[in-house]
């Protein structure tokens, strides 16, 4: 069992953070190696995640469910699935709470991941280290995503700086969003038939 307890301080407003964190497409784009698949009628959706344990790349496929409470800004994510070799099952559960901090927003994430099967022996203690690196990466991405939209009327000097340092993640995010929208349309179309 791997546990995650992480408090992320995001320099943004709670409503902006909630907007990001309650949107699966946004969340997925914060996790490198994660992809969103089809969504199901009950509101759950498919997802895949490629994780590198040591030098071995493992692809997991999961059904993910997200329960959201916009009143309290709390959510609960559950995922269960298997890896590509069908040798390992995993379940993950995480709750997250968004609240106003001192001039910033604090996101409290508490989660548990359990791996059952062949992989468990292969990754031994290393899995915990891998997960904590991923959590760190997620936090960084989340902070970037939640950054306030850049003002178009910024001073030329600043504008210059922003163009040269435009993070590639930004365009990836745009691409993902468009892809997600396409997927949704395709889904709707398929279901209509």
């Amino acid at each position, binding site marked *: 069992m791997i546990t995650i307890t992480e408090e992320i301080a995001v320099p943004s407003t709670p409503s902006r953070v909630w907007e990001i964190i309650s949107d699966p497409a946004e969340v997925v784009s914060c996790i490198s190696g994660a992809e969103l698949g089809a969504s199901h009628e009950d509101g759950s959706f498919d997802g895949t995640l490629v994780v590198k344990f040591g030098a*071995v790349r493992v692809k997991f496929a999961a059904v993910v469910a997200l329960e959201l409470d916009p009143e309290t800004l709390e959510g609960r994510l559950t995922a269960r699935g298997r890896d*590509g*070799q069908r040798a390992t099952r995993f379940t993950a559960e995480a709750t997250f709470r968004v609240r106003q901090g001192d001039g910033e927003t604090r996101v409290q994430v508490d989660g548990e991941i359990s791996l059952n099967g062949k992989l468990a022996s292969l990754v031994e*203690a290393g899995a*915990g*280290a891998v997960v904590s690196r991923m959590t760190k990466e997620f936090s960084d991405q989340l902070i970037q995503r939640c950054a306030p939209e850049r003002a178009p009327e910024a001073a030329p000097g600043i504008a210059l700086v922003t163009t040269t340092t435009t993070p590639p993640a930004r365009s990836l995010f745009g691409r993902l969003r468009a892809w997600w929208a396409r997927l949704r349309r395709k889904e709707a179309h398929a279901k209509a038939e």
Partner: protein
Amino acid sequence: MKVYEVLAQAFVAEGTSDVFGMMGDANMHWMNALAQRGVRLYEVRHEGSGLGMADGWARAAGRPGVVTTTSGPGVAQLATSMICASRARTPLVAFCGETPWGDQSAVQYLDQRRFAAAIECGFVHVSRPDLAAEAVQKAFYLARTESRPIMLSAPIDVQKQECENDDYVPSLNLLPRVRSLPDPAGIEAACEIIRDSKRVVVIAGRGARRADAGEQILRLQEQTGALLATTLQAKNWLCDRTGYHVGIAGLYGNKAAMELLQEADCVIAVGASLNHYTIEHGYLFPEARYIQIDTAPHVVMGNGAVADCYLQADAVTALTQLSQALESRSVRLDGYHTADVRTRLTIPPVEFRSEPGRLDPREVIQVLDTELPGEIGLVLGSGHQTDFGTMLFQRSREVMSNYGMFGAIGQAPLLTIGAIVAGGNKPAFVVEGDASFLMHLPEFETACRYDIPVLVVVMNDEALGAEYHKAMASGLDPELAVIPTPELGQVAVALGGGGATVRTAEQLRAALNEYVRNPRPTVIDVRITRDVVSVPYRRLLYGEDV
């Protein structure tokens, strides 16, 4: 004739030339009878160690090794080594004396049948004088056909009775000598898979090496543009014959090899069971289809599945037919044979991290590989240190590893002694941890007594290094695993051998050169730093992508 003589005669007829063990009331008559028949006896300091030597002897010779013990306590000492031999699938016969048949109040009484079952070996009982020879034949037959250790248990009162000396039929005469030919439909199916593939990996295992299928493997590798990997048991085999050798498949592969192997879409295993170590439960070859050539009737691979194409056949025949079939269909792949792959396989130099008086273990391996000629065989020991040699030895030589065979430390020097005896006393070296070597230290004295030219290179971190690093990773106190040792070079000299304790690469080279000039039982105690963590540990304990 006495039963013990009949038994001894039968062992000789089975090809027994060397017996390891310790005498006691219940086996000494038999040992005397063996000595009279020219069998060399190796008196050891612990029966379990004797079994370890017989195990090494059998692995090197490819036929059943023999160990002997007296009744009860002698048998009980066998436990750990017996389970190792069983897990290694070593053919072996343990001749064990027994207290008088039926006397359960005898001091040394032990229910040897139940004990044998618990330590995972087969059991044959000598219950009657007239069945003694048959019992030996059965024990050897089972050891050979099932490739496992068998305990032949003989009550001392039965051994001392008289019986007829009939003609003995050795178990080998009961074994048919046939080559198994591959099913033509299987060859056809294998061709189809290869034709549809782009990146083929050939994995050569212990079975292929035993079958001497090297040339056939290289031909197939050439035709299919394949990378050549080996199992741990075939480490470094053929590594001097192709630029596309990636070393061991599994956790001991380097980063470039691991990445390349994960791109494979076809794996051809030859004499390799593809256990979970070799294919990392399947994770090492996520996209591959498998072709497996093996003499076993059926094999379930380490991913719980069966190969897409299983060819039960002798390796040489199957490979020859497969290569011919590919040629007649004009199937030829470039696969991995590109300049880019070669570049990726070039090993970048590492910067060694020694501290005053303590060497970097990676440098030690490099010096050993350079200074010790390829004719000198290698046995890889246990503990954390073994990762360095397992990954880094490059030179083509005979390599034996005990990794994954029950995971007991300390067996490797015993295996080495046995292997040297089997090979006619040709020098060999073992790279072992300090705690592992000290576990069976008295057997170094055995090696000295019989002038067995074993070189023990002790990778001395003055610790249970494995536990030290695991403690570090899991927040326990690593100091609990730090255990000082005396200078083992001096200890070796006191026991009658050669020895040196070295703290620099220069001293190490000098000590090695002395051994190469004059091979004799020698211990080189190499002081190494605890600051270098092995690649497998970094992967397993910290999930590092290295």
